[in-house]
């Protein structure tokens, strides 16, 4: 089994009102050194060993469902998972 860790981030051109709200809050708490906050998503998939090209498979799933490339970028890491 392989574990795929997918990181989804908002494209730079897209405003992130959630991130701005969190930054405002951090500033109020005294963390004035924070210059920007962007909120993304983290997904973990477990992929069976009999899957062929995991890289191609994950790219396909990211483009079809897991991300929306109009506003999001993604990257992923594939790890060998120790079977339980």
């Amino acid at each position, binding site marked *: 089994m392989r574990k795929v860790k997918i990181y989804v981030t908002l494209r730079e051109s*897209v405003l992130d009102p*959630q991130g701005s709200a969190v930054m405002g809050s951090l500033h109020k708490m005294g963390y004035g050194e924070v210059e920007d906050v962007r909120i993304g998503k983290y997904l973990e998939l477990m992929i069976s060993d009999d899957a062929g090209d995991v890289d191609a498979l994950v790219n396909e799933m990211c483009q079809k*469902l*897991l991300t*929306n490339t*109009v*506003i999001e970028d993604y990257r992923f890491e594939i790890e060998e998972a120790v079977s339980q």
Partner: protein
Amino acid sequence: MKFAVIVFPGSNCDLDMYHAVKDELGEEAEYVWHDSTDLSGYDGILLPGGFSYGDYLRCGAIAQSSPVMDEVKKAAEAGKPVLGICNGFQILTEAGLLPGILLRNKNLKFMCRTVGLKVENANTLFTNEYMAGQEIRIPIAHGEGNYYCDDATYEQLKNNNQIVFSYADDFNGSRNNIAGIVNERGNVLGMMPHPERAVSDLIGGSDGLSLFKSIVKQWREANVSHA
């Protein structure tokens, strides 16, 4: 004219959509479940608002992968009118039938109120009963109605007259106050405001009724021959 009202798990404006075309206009309408694989018997497709699949992942993203969406795409390709309201608009963008995407409102709040809309294009099959530039009042109810697209897409929308409705005031952050757009061919409309909630003066307004009348009028002109 026979309408399909597509129902996803979490749709909640399906009854209002049905009511608008069936009770107010006297047309035929049926609820069609999201796993249906045949829409060939319908003349128009309505995608209602709500929170399909709890808005998990992204609004409309999971509904977009439902079996019925392949049929909605076929209907759009065949030139049938396809109308997506609120969550229905979000589903149409996720499905790639309309460009852009709906983001969180800029103030992060769910907003529910009646707003002013300007009819930007009265030459579509959805708006032929309105006047160009007419201001109408339609309720909104959304947390993710902030329309976003890149510059190239916006230019394309503008040059092709695909912007159909815009908000009179900016309250959710939408690019150029865009409230509703059509595809290039003009037979797929997505809009965040709810015309199906404004079909009778008894419930606060009837400015939305003309949208449904437009669809029916266009269809009759194209399909019914007068003896």
